[in-house]
């Protein structure tokens, strides 16, 4: 195995060998412990300096190697992403799991992913020979399937700082150590007059509730984007219904489609009521 210290070294290794990448290991080690996978070669990237950087003055860039614990301690560029990081696993998991792992694993239940969708984030992918920038909306093609090539690493996620009016909500059987039954990220970028709503665990990929976003934007056009508002019960219900309609959930081991549709409506109205009060 190789323990890479520099990005160039890691990318060269990916180009020249069929190494499997490991960062925090909180997904891959489970599979290895249970004998479900035994990669012939491993490439540890948790020490690669370039992947651990955070820039956050207006334009936010978070390196893929940043752990959830560091996001909680250091990230100012997205309150919703910090909220999402806080819901991941446990302190043990948060100290080693990374945002890059969440992105590259691309589970529809990944907790940071609805936030990245709602932020309209761009993912920076690099191989030894090239860099490409992929909008988050184009990155996931199905459950745990992405456009990432075998010789590429996710090196960073970037977005424009959308201000404080954003939140992330998640439903699970416990308030720690759970894979989301359903999750929702809501971003109201008051300065740019944009609403983003990302849905998790209710479709093959992370979904955007575009009809609901239009409706919320309409509410804010009327009420004023700079103002703190208290949306009416009927407005919240209408928003909830549109979010519910955007979901494409299935029945699975963690819950039913019907429950997911119901709970997403609840999450949507709670999220908007909360965020409408943040200016």
């Amino acid at each position, binding site marked *: *195995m190789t323990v890479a210290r520099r990005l160039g070294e890691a990318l060269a290794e990916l180009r020249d060998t069929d190494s499997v990448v*490991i960062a925090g290991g909180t997904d891959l080690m489970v599979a*290895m412990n*249970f004998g479900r996978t035994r*990669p012939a070669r491993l490439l540890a990237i*948790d020490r690669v300096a370039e992947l651990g950087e955070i820039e956050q003055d207006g334009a936010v860039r978070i390196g893929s190697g940043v752990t959830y614990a560091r996001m909680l301690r250091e990230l100012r560029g997205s309150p919703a992403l910090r909220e999402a990081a806080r819901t991941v696993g*446990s302190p043990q*998991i948060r100290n*080693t799991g990374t945002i890059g792992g969440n992105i590259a694993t691309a589970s529809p239940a990944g907790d940071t992913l609805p936030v990245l969708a709602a932020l309209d984030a761009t993912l920076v992918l690099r191989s030894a020979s090239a860099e490409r920038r992929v909008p988050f909306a184009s990155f996931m093609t199905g459950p745990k399937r992405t456009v990432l090539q075998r010789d590429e690493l996710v090196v960073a996620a970037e977005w424009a700082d959308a201000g404080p009016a954003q939140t992330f909500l998640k439903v699970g059987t416990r308030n720690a150590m759970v894979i989301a039954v359903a999750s929702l990220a809501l971003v109201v970028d008051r300065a740019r007059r944009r609403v983003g709503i990302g849905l998790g665990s209710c479709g093959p990929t992370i979904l955007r509730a575009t009809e609901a976003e239009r409706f919320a934007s309409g509410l804010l056009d009327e009420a004023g984007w700079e103002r703190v508002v208290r949306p009416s019960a009927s407005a919240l219900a209408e928003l909830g219904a549109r979010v519910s309609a955007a979901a494409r959930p299935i029945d699975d081991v963690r819950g039913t489609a019907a429950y997911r549709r119901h709970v997403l409506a609840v999450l949507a109205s709670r999220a908007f009521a909360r965020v409408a009060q943040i200016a």
Partner: protein
Amino acid sequence: MRLRLSVNGSTREVEAREHESLLTVLRDGIGLRGSKGACEQGECGSCSVLVDGSLVCACLMLAGACVDRDIRTVESFGDDDLHPVQRAFVDAGAVQCGFCTPGFIVATAALLREDPEPSDAEIREALAGNICRCTGYGRIVDAVHRAAGLARR
């Protein structure tokens, strides 16, 4: 492959397979059995150790990726003389079968290093990665408060 790891302040040389976890190496390679192998998927916390001061599950750490890092297991927390956290768990009656206890000791020590006077809610969130099947957690929370008090004195 041959690995040189820094464990509890000493350099240990062990033979390990590429895919092996730190937990396997600690228990079977070095003979430090305080960290427990139970769920092997980072859910129960009974394998909790400190790596470079950070609380992690040893079952989720690739042994080969732990080179050049400072690893501390429960064995580093006191022996015949109990560490204040261990003393607190004993005095609070927070140990029943004892299987989860090493993980809780390490997790509690990590918490109190960062937050010397945590509230009940902060304790429960900090220990959310450690599962106990015996005690119902009440006395464990008491033990953490007690350990915080011992540290203050």
